[in-house]
């Protein structure tokens, strides 16, 4: 989460910050909300749907692997990138953080995100009906990278708090679809 108050947000820049319950049931509503906000702010339906999927998969991971407690979602446009970050509580020395980092590293090893996605799907195919939920978690992350065209990062942003970010480069045409006037900017 890059900023704590709206004072640091440039006028006209998309910035959405939500504190969410630790609940699987709210994820679909959040996905639709993220889609609506990005579509309205950047006037790009495809990008909105892609990034809504990204938020949705990250939220699912937080609910599946995180500790019970509030989850923070931040969607912001910074320096030609759209950043979706999900923060949630974790146990100190949690194994799931290590596994998450390993999965992100696995995806980065491939020359392209689509190849990583194909590898994740192949793992499911090879394991067949015995495929475990761990393959689904990798699949979800690979999907974020391939379908969402995002670069994944994770870090312990404060003690006991994990933040996973998905960064999507956006073109100047996509950014500031609604131009900010001089007066507004001042």
């Amino acid at each position, binding site marked *: 989460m890059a900023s704590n108050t709206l004072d640091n947000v440039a006028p006209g820049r998309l910035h959405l910050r939500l504190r969410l319950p630790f609940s*699987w049931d709210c*994820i*679909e509503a959040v*996905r639709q909300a993220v889609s609506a906000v990005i579509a309205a702010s950047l006037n790009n339906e*495809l990008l909105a*749907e*892609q990034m809504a*999927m990204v938020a*949705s*998969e990250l939220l*699912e991971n937080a609910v*599946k692997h995180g500790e019970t407690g509030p989850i923070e979602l931040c969607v912001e446009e910074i320096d030609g990138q759209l950043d979706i970050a999900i923060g949630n509580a974790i146990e100190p020395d949690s194994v799931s953080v290590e596994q998450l980092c390993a999965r992100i590293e696995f995806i980065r090893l491939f020359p392209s995100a*689509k190849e990583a*996605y*194909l590898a994740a*799907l*192949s793992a*499911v*195919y090879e394991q*067949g*009906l015995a*495929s475990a*939920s761990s*393959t*689904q*978690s990798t*699949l*979800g992350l690979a*999907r974020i990278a*391939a*379908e969402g065209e995002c670069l994944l990062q994770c870090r312990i942003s404060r003690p006991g708090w994990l933040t996973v970010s998905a960064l999507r480069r956006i073109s100047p045409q996509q950014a500031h679809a609604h131009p900010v006037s001089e007066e507004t900017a001042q």
Partner: protein
Amino acid sequence: MILATRKVCRGSTVVEVGLSPGNVVRISGVFRETGEEPWLQDLLVSIHEEAQRVRLDELVLDLRALSYANAEGWRNLVLLLRLLKGPPRASYKLLMLTNMTHQWQRVGIPTLSVFGGSMLNIDSRNTSPESDVADSGRRSWKA
């Protein structure tokens, strides 16, 4: 040579089996499951077994009204393709009706061809399920 008609509703997902002409499985709504209770996986396995038993030559999986699916949804589709390819190789081919206006289908569905090979056909004409009613009796899925 038709599937027994049934309808399964779980959360925001509806699965209708045996729709006319008897070999259509339509999944609609939003699919978001954790994978802890793999009800769709179990249902697809049972449909596959039934399709083998009644010796279908084609099973139609209609995803056009499925507006979103999470990674578990993809896992289920890949598993169905695994069943299709065998061993033993299925007696039927799978035709997937898709709607690429749903963003979630754009990248993933073409990727499924890698696993389905010649056993999988993908119809990406983005027609709506409602248009089938007007077309019934005239339309061949194999067209």
